[in-house]
Structures are given as C-alpha cells and as structure tokens.
C-alpha cells in the first residue's frame, strides 16, 4: 500500500569494506506514502472542492437576488440510494423487506423506514376469545406470574425490580394481598383523583377472599417482557380488547436495552424513558409499558399524538415523578380492539 516507483534492478548487497561509509547509494531512495495518507488527502481535497463549488453557487444565487435558505441536515436519502441503504439495514438487522407496506424508494429517511407499516394481512390476529396476543414483534425475554408483596419482575438472574417501580407509584395495579402496600404507594395521589382511582381500583381488584362456591374467577397477576431488536417491526398493537384509562410518561435516561445491558445495568427498565398505558380488559387490570432505548427514545402514541417523548431535559439524578394523563375518567377511556395499532417506537 505504498505509492512509490521501486527500481527494478536488484540492489547490490552492501559489502563490509565498502568505501562510502557502509550504506548503499541514497540516489534512488524511495519516498514512501502510506495509502491512508493519500486517501485522507484525497478526501480533504474533495471536501474543499465541494465547499468552493457551494460558495460559488451561493454567490451566483445572491447575484440573482435569490436568498439562500437554511438547508436542514441531509436526513433525506437520495431516491436512487434508498433501496441500497434499506437493503443494507435489512441485511445487518435481519429485517423482512417483503412485508414493508410501501416500495423502498418511498421512505425518505431511515427514521421513516424504521417506523414503517406492514402490508395488509402481514400480521393475522389470533381470534380465539380466550387468548392474549403479542403487542409487538420481538423476542420473549421473561414471563411469569407476579406473586407476593413486592411483585418483582425478574430482569435477569440476580436482578429484579418491583412492578410498582416500573408502572409508577400511582399505578392502579390491584394487589389485594398487599392492599396496604398499595395505600402507601398511593399517598401521592390528590384526593379528587383518589376518588376516581379508588373506583377503578375497586372495580379492578380481585375478590378479597376466594369463595369457591362463587362463580367469580380467582385472578392472578402475570407479566411478559418482549425485546425488539433494531430490525424488528416497531409498531405497537393492542394485546386484547381493552379500555385504556391512564397514560403515564417517565422521561428517564436512555440506556441500551440489549442483552448485555440487561445483564449489567441493574434496574434498567425503571431507569429508561418509558410510556405506561393502564386500563381494564375482560379479566381485570392490564398495563403495557413501552420502554425506550438509546437512539430509539421517542415513543409515539397514535391514541394521543400530542405526546412528546425523548425531549432534551436536564437529567437529574433523582428520577422525576411521571407526567400523567387520565383518559376520560368515566371509566370508559380509550377503547381498543385486539390488534389495533396504538403506538410506535421511533428512531431518534
């Protein structure tokens, strides 16, 4: 990788009794120029030439009286380049391009491609009335039943976090066994909201004592953690027919949530920015937590388009209280059918 013209004739081996001080003749010394240096010089030259061309163009436009507007960063990918960029992304992250709703040329930026919709019928919804469906594409990380006072969700072996820390202290989570635990958590709720929420809590709570003769079902609390990799389809759908009553937004940090991070960052899911939706379905309480990650921090809700997440805020060490939005407190909230689109993870 050197740019030099080496002499073709073999160099005479220096003899021990040579008269000119022992070194061979310096006349044909080669001047070594490593390839990387040449590439850097070429790149700097190209950038300088482009800068001169842009300046000349600006001068000409100014001479014609056309005011130069501010050009946003080149987030838009040139049309001819789009298929190549998205195919490279699909190859790197194992995305299935066949399912994309639009031709690749129509996604003007990677951000738009990232939150793409799928062709009609790409995700048939299981119609069994006694089943809960997955709200997203991804990999099942953890699932199980939440029992006992702390109701801990296992992050990885050795790391667990209380479900109240994930959903928020004012969560409607019905834990009849620990109603006192819930009371102390709900101190932060104002009295008016308390009356609203206590109605919800009463309507959600499973029976205090299970009467075997009663026809009411005894209910347990379950959880499931699903990880979306960068190449997955990133829209969020409704796991069942349910009414969403409350939305809570924690503007936390944005750590990665890949496997290595879940093993090394304790309490990862209760540090990261996240949006919690809570409501009721036919079997009682339901909550869906959309947890952001590095550079995928903005979570968009189609049921509340005005919600802005991943805003640059001062990152105080103490996690702030969440920003809460009650949907229509007559207990109806936002009604969604199983499989309805309710939100998306956006890049950036």
């Amino acid at each position, binding site marked *: 990788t050197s740019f030099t013209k080496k002499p073709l004739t073999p160099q005479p081996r220096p003899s021990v009794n040579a008269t000119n001080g022992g070194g061979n003749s310096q006349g044909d010394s080669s001047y070594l120029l490593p390839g990387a240096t040449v590439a850097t010089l070429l790149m700097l030259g190209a950038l300088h030439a482009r800068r001169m061309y842009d300046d000349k163009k600006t001068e000409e436009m100014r001479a014609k009286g056309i005011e130069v507007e501010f050009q946003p960063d080149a987030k838009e990918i040139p049309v001819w380049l789009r298929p190549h960029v998205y195919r490279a992304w699909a190859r790197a992250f194992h995305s299935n391009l066949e399912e994309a709703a639009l031709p690749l040329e129509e996604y003007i930026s990677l951000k738009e491609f990232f939150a793409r919709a799928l062709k009609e019928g790409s995700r048939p919804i299981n119609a069994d009335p006694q089943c809960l469906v997955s709200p997203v594409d991804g990999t099942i990380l953890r699932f199980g039943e939440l029992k006992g006072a702390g109701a801990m969700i296992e992050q990885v072996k050795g790391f667990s976090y209380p479900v109240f820390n994930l959903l928020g202290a004012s969560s409607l989570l019905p834990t009849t066994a620990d109603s006192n635990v819930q009371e102390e958590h709900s101190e932060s709720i104002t009295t008016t909201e308390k009356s609203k929420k206590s109605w919800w809590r009463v309507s959600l709570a499973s029976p205090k004592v299970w009467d075997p003769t009663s026809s009411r079902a005894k209910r*347990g609390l379950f959880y499931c953690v699903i990880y*979306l990799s960068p190449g997955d389809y990133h829209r*969020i759908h409704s*796991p069942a027919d349910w009414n969403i009553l409350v939305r809570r937004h924690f503007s936390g940090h944005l750590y990665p949530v890949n496997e290595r991070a879940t093993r090394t960052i304790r309490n990862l899911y209760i540090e990261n920015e996240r949006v919690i939706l809570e409501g009721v379905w036919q079997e009682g309480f339901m909550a869906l937590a959309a947890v952001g990650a590095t550079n995928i921090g903005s979570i968009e809700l189609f049921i509340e388009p005005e919600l802005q997440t991943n805003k640059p805020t001062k990152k105080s060490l103490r996690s702030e209280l969440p920003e809460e939005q009650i949907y229509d407190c007559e207990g109806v909230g936002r009604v969604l059918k199983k499989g309805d689109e309710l939100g998306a993870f956006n890049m950036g």
Partner: protein
Amino acid sequence: STVVLVFQAPISKLLQEGDSSQEFNFNVKCGDRIRVGEALGRWHSS
C-alpha cells in the same frame, strides 16, 4: 426497545355446577421469537 405487559388473568375457577377450572397458561418460552397477533397465552376450561 422493550415492551412489558402486566395483566390480570384467571388462575383457577370452580364453576358451581361442576368442577371444571379455567387457568391462564403462557404458550411461549424464553428466547422464542413472536410476532404481533400471535397468542402469548390462553386460558381454557378443562
């Protein structure tokens, strides 16, 4: 990104006229790939 689902579901139900019971069971395993609309779990009368 990650989605965490927390929900109530029947764990057992003794019907008055018989002894059948309903309980929720996951039909996935850790590490499974899953797609939107596929069943995470179901409860059934047995």
